[in-house]
């Protein structure tokens, strides 16, 4: 199964890849299908009235590969693109995560062992098959060879998707999108379940190891610079509210925990009289929601929140003493719509 449905509003690289190089993705799917001796191949995408479905179905039908590639539309929802949710949906169930084990590689779509790969990985496989591994390794770093598709939005002049060599710095990637549109105080990386990176870490290379060492995560590569005038805590409160609304509502610690975390953050962001108590509760609740869901949604929300409390610690002190940022009530500058 090729996963081409990004459940991350900040990411639009899968849509860009399917738009710009659909046959490269289909090449990768067919190569992997042939290598595994797969009986069927599925390309899972977000479809809709103006979606890429009709075009991709036409392109897939024109091919003479080892197995026909079926193009299937999946609901545009945060948890729907998680691999157990994809398997569940394409087996006739709801597009919500299931308890694993069993992993999809043991029991996947219709009970058959299923390999789920992101379409960017499959496009890379197609290029490696054409040009060889040494060619692929000409770019990138030894532990993360090749290129990355990075979605960039927020305080930049021209938001969009850029393809960069792995190991390119956060700053250089942002420069490719016309550079920051103002003074940047922090960058949200790895999507809404990702991590805040302080502006001092803007020279961090885009690799898993370097981003982890900087306290962030590469995750789904997205970079969202936050301008100095905006309130990082208020933005985090809204993002966690969004994540809470995206919960499938299956696991108690996520169903009850994320709205509670979002409410604590909102109280802090507003600098309310309850902010200090909210902060104490919040620290405790972050531990309660971590690692206790079937999918990684609650863990991501907790990571986002922890890094916000850390990166915006000076703001946090002001918010807790009744002096919230002037921009705490300003509109959110990051996208909340699915692409």
């Amino acid at each position, binding site marked *: 199964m090729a996963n081409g449905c990004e459940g991350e509003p900040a990411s639009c690289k899968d849509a860009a890849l399917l738009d710009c190089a659909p046959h490269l993705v289909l090449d990768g799917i067919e190569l992997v299908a042939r290598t595994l001796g797969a009986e069927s191949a599925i390309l899972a995408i977000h479809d809709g009235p103006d979606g890429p479905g009709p075009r991709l179905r036409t392109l897939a039908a024109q091919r003479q590969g080892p197995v026909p590639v079926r193009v299937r539309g999946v609901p545009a929802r945060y948890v729907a693109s998680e691999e157990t949710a994809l398997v569940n949906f394409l087996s006739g169930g709801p597009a919500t*995560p*299931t*308890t694993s084990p069993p992993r999809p590689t043991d029991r996947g779509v219709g009970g058959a062992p299923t390999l789920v790969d992101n379409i960017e990985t499959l496009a890379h496989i197609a290029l490696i098959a054409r040009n060889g591994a040494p060619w692929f390794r000409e770019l990138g770093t030894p532990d993360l060879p090749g290129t990355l598709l990075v979605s960039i939005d927020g305080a930049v002049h021209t938001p969009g998707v850029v393809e960069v060599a792995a190991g390119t710095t956060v700053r250089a990637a942002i420069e490719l999108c016309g550079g920051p549109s103002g003074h940047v105080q922090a960058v949200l990386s790895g999507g809404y379940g990702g991590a805040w990176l302080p502006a001092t870490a803007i020279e961090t290379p885009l690799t898993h190891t370097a981003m982890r060492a900087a306290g962030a995560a590469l995750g789904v590569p997205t970079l969202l610079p936050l301008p100095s005038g905006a309130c990082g805590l208020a933005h985090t409160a809204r993002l966690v509210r969004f994540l809470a609304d995206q919960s499938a509502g*299956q*696991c*108690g*610690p*996520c169903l*009850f*925990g994320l709205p509670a975390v979002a409410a604590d953050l909102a109280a802090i962001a507003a600098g309310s009289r309850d902010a200090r108590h909210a902060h104490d509760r919040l620290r405790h*609740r972050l531990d*309660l929601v971590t*690692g*206790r*869901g*079937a999918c990684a949604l609650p863990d991501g929300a907790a990571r986002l929140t922890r890094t916000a409390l850390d990166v915006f610690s000076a703001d946090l002190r002001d918010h807790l003493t009744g002096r919230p940022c002037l921009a705490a009530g300003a509109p959110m500058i990051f996208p909340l719509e699915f692409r």
Partner: protein
Amino acid sequence: MIKRLRVDPIACAAHGLCADLLPDHIDLDEWGYPILADGRTGRPLGRDDQRDARAAVEACPTLALRIEATPR
């Protein structure tokens, strides 16, 4: 083989019987859902605990509590 408790977070509906039956191994969070001692993996079950653990597994109304055997 080491035996540990495991909670299926989707199946669990916060009945809380497990925490009554195994207070040394299971605590409840503020919403009534079980927290395993030592985090997600749970503390290894001693020989004496295993009978109580099996009773808790059988008592769970939604079959969300399991005992898992792992090499370590």
